[in-house]
């Protein structure tokens, strides 16, 4: 839709009839008059990629406690991305268009990524399940359970204790051991370009 040239007089009459005959369109027009933006006009929102979760992991615990909305520096996130690239070629893998490759080819590369990611996670994070019970088992959440660590779903009514089936054990970073940076700017380079002389 072009906003620079308004529709001609006859087009506007045609539009008025169209609004008369189409309740859905009428609703849209009413909303527009009320000042709401069209979906296409809304600037694209940042899709919350999984790395946002990693950012939260990096934030030192005391900061989270003092303020819920924390503007994090991207350094730690970039650093983790750099480690995943160095150990596992993670960025190469995700940035490549997989459409033209067979599952066997993707699988071969995935071995590099999988093995390297495991190594990077093992070295730099201590991951543990949020709940130690086996998935599929029935568990009871007491009143005052940690809602940040356990998400309830389905028939959520009444008051805890809640009893339900553990669908996913969850993961928690018990410890984060990121390398120290002697130069913060270095983290922005996730992988150096390589030039063989």
């Amino acid at each position, binding site marked *: 839709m072009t906003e620079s040239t308004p529709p001609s007089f006859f087009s506007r009459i045609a539009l008025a009839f169209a609004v008369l005959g189409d309740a859905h369109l009428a609703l849209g027009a009413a909303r527009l008059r009320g000042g709401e933006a069209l979906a296409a006009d809304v600037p694209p929102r940042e899709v919350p990629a999984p790395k946002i979760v990693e950012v939260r992991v990096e934030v030192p615990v005391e900061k989270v406690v003092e303020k819920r909305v924390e503007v994090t520096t991207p350094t730690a996130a970039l650093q983790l991305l750099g480690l995943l690239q160095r150990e596992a070629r993670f960025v190469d*893998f995700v940035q490549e268009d997989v459409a033209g490759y067979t599952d066997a*080819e993707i699988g071969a*590369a995935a071995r*590099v990524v999988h093995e390297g990611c495991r190594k990077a996670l093992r070295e730099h994070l201590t991951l543990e399940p949020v709940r130690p019970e086996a998935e599929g088992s029935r568990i009871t959440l007491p009143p005052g359970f940690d809602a940040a660590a356990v998400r309830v779903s389905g028939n959520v009514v009444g008051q805890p204790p809640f009893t339900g089936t553990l669908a996913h054990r969850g993961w928690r970073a018990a410890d984060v051991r990121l390398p*120290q940076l*002697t*130069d913060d700017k*270095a983290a922005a380079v996730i992988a150096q370009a*390589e030039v063989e002389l």
Partner: protein
Amino acid sequence: MTVETTGARFSIGIDLGTTHCALSWVDLSASDGDRVVQGVLDVPQLTAPATLEARPLLPSFLYLPHESELSAGDTALPWGAAEGGITGELARTRGAATPIRLVASAKSWLCHPGVDRRAPILPADAPAEVARISPLAASVRYLTHLRDAWEHAHPDAPLAAQHVTVTIPASFDPAARELTAEACQAAGFERLTLLEEPQAALYSWIQASGGGWRKQVQSGDVILVVDVGGGTTDLSLIAVQENAGSLELRRIAVGEHILLGGDNMDLALAYGVARKLAQEGKQLDAWQTRALAHGCRAAKEQLLANENVQSVPVVVPSRGSKLIGGSLRTEVTRAEVQQTLVEGFFPQVAVTDKPQTRARGALTQLGLPYAQDAAVTRHLAAFLARQAGALDQATFARPTAILFNGGVLKAPQIAQRIVQVINGWLAQDGAAPARLLDGAHLDLAVARGAAYHGHIAARGQGVRIRGGTAQSYYVGVESNMPAIPGMEPPISALCLAPFGMEEGSEVALDAQEFGLVVGEPVRLRFFGSSVRRNDTVGTLLDFWGPEELVELQEIEAQLPAEGRTPGEVVPVTLHARVTDIGTLELDAVPVGGSERWKVEFDVRAPAASE
């Protein structure tokens, strides 16, 4: 022998390895008897540009970057900027891609008598514009990094005030031991002891047993320590004896220096797989070959750890950013690992087998003297056969127990193969099979054992391994035979220091006077023997078997001209002393005088004719 402990809060053990270094500590004030408070220092090091991580192992690599390669911020360490190159993990990974700027295996160069070890010769194939450094200086760099890391973590306990035990291969000759001590002193270690690595491994085992070792070995046992590290293989025999009701350990024999280790094995496997890929028409460049070696190492560990795995896929990632499109996939099979590693490096051989040698080409002399026979078991057979006399046994020295050390022996199949081969030899001799002593941590045992050794030395309690000098030493003298024209005058070997001289002891060779010309260096031929254990000072050998005496680098004595007339001939005798550090020291003492002049082991090599 007393070890000064005033002010020392810690006993520090340092494993100065060919491929990795490690530092372990014992808190002396908190430890008592078998209860030992011990830790391993996580060493901060660069793992990528501007990225610091603390890891228990410091790779023994030094990278000399081009001035445009890394900024000052990229190479900063917690204790200040790294000067003149990078040590540790970043050096290893950078250097893999730019080997002309990488110093590796400095320790092997330090014990290479064919080169001047104080001269800037490394990296051996660096172009002219790279400022090379000496094997000695490289060793100082690794030790300094460990010192700085320690002092960063313990600012109130400077290393110079602690008791430091640094480990060396049992096979190090007097010159290499002295150079190691010199490197340690240059790094500021003031209270220093050198300890042989197989002994350190045994100390670590003793400590890990928590006093239970006395039940696991008994008087009459002979423990064979097999230490296969990243770059070298080291062998020792340690006897368990009883003295006044308590058990005593005595190191009775050490093997030769064998430049053969886990890195050779990983490369052998990678080259085998690269050949397989080449047959499929896939040629690998140098970068891919290294990536393949990395993948093969991981595959090898899986295959050797689990007998049910028949093959492990290995992917050689592309160098470019197209990971999926550019990667090569292959696999390493159980049969390949069995053939290349187990049969290639640990074949079933007879105890009478000798390592195969071939004449070296003159051009190979500039490099390291790598073992020519890759079969560790053949080196082992030769060692035990040569040391039969150490135990008064006829065919070979028969161990009753085996202790393993080194990363290679983490693989159960390789460990089993060695035990199987040794027990095969024992069975043929009608002897009982040797049992395997449960090892401690194979990567860190040497550093931990060294720290523990310093602890018991400081306390004067706990069992100590006695041993003294690992060889007897001889000086070459012209023999009393008539000279034959056209032939080199025959030479006799005069024993200067007997086998097993302990720290702090001294002997004098009065039987022979040497005339030293004031102001002029005099060179003497120098020999060592790991088998002639009954010779005493002054024993003169006119003949010896090829296996009996090994010629070492020449030694050099020089009288300074002060107070004397240059050209004057001064008769001197030679004195041998084992220092408290554990190095051998030779001195020239004028007859009737009390002055002493040090006789140098590590003589500058005569200028090589190009």
